[in-house]
């Protein structure tokens, strides 16, 4: 009940809103950062699927690699 803004004074409400905005800004990820994270993640996934030399992964996706015609394999 202490943090309920409806039962607080205007000053307490202001502090509460200010605190929430601070948390929001602190955890906000900009669009550019989101795009970069997505690109890095997709690079890892695509490299793992199509380009890694780890035998278990390579052998599992070997036919897929050759079925695409543009993925370099051995």
């Amino acid at each position, binding site marked *: 009940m202490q943090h309920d803004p409806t039962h607080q004074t205007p000053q307490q409400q202001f502090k509460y809103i200010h605190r929430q905005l601070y948390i929001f800004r602190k955890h906000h990820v900009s669009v550019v950062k989101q795009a970069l994270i*997505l690109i890095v993640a997709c690079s890892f996934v695509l490299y793992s699927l199509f380009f890694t*030399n*780890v035998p278990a992964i390579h052998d599992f996706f070997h036919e897929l690699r050759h*079925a695409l015609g543009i993925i370099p394999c051995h």
Partner: protein
Amino acid sequence: MVICCFSLQLLSAVLVQAEQGALTVEMTTMPAVETIRPDADLVRVTLTFLQHAQPLNQAHVQIDVTAPSHSRLLSTDFPIVEGTHLLSLASVITDGTLTFDYLFPIRGTYTFDVTVTPDPKNAAMPPTTVHKTLHLRENPAEVRHAWLLVAGLFVFGAISGIFMARSAAAKEQTATIIAFAILCAAALGAEAADAAATQTPQAPAGWSLEIQATPEQATVGEPVQLAIALKKDDKIFTAPMQVSLDIHHLEDDKAVFHTQTLAADGATSLRFQFFDGAPHTVTVTARPIEDMAFAQEAPPLRAVLGMEVMAIHPPLPVKLRTLALLIGVLVVGMLVGGFVLPVVKERGGA
């Protein structure tokens, strides 16, 4: 109608006709060149040698096949093979033709260097070298799959772009992606391959057929010299022999190469590049032509050589270039989804 069909068949079959001096070399393939799928169809290549429109008899022919060169943009699925020497085949021809079956590994333009050395009695024709090319398209199914991958990446990028444009904070989604990326990052590493060759000659009644690979360890991108010798009482049988050579890909259970050649002096050799890092078998059968006692006595001699081919992984720049192209498609999709689509929608709404 018959003439029309015959003409069409000739158009599809005859690829190149080269004439140098009095020698004409024609190259035909079965199936037709437009329908050949690399690394899928075993292609019968027939070279016909004509001198003054007559089949060339008693000549020594050497064929060297070179793989298509590197592409600046898109790699093939066997980048190590690109631009390398694939095959050297030598034979004596007696009926004006030389035939071999070959599994072409990649798309692109292959170069055939055909050297014809006529019989010494044929003084009218000097040794001649003819250059020919053979262009193969990519397997249509693989082209379709590649476009599906590109389209999938573009759509995924566009959807991601739309979400990122609409939502200021996509923490949960990003965290999920990061966790997935960390899991996949564990996949990076290196792989080693080992291989060994065995030889199984058969030697009935004083005869033996020997096949020797140099180097013994085959490696993708490097031709292997296969020396074949027919021996009688441990001495090379210096007379014409007919040689049949088969190379089989054990992992995929498919034929890679087949030919029948004529060796003038009981020994011949073949330079062959194994383009896939997988176990192969080389089977050679040989029979002396002029030794009637042998022909009545036994079936052709047979030797089998097992070849474990060492794989060479693609160079890192080639991998990164292809990865950059795929990521580029994703980025274009994100830009379209994040910027272009909202603007179009806004204008449509206005």
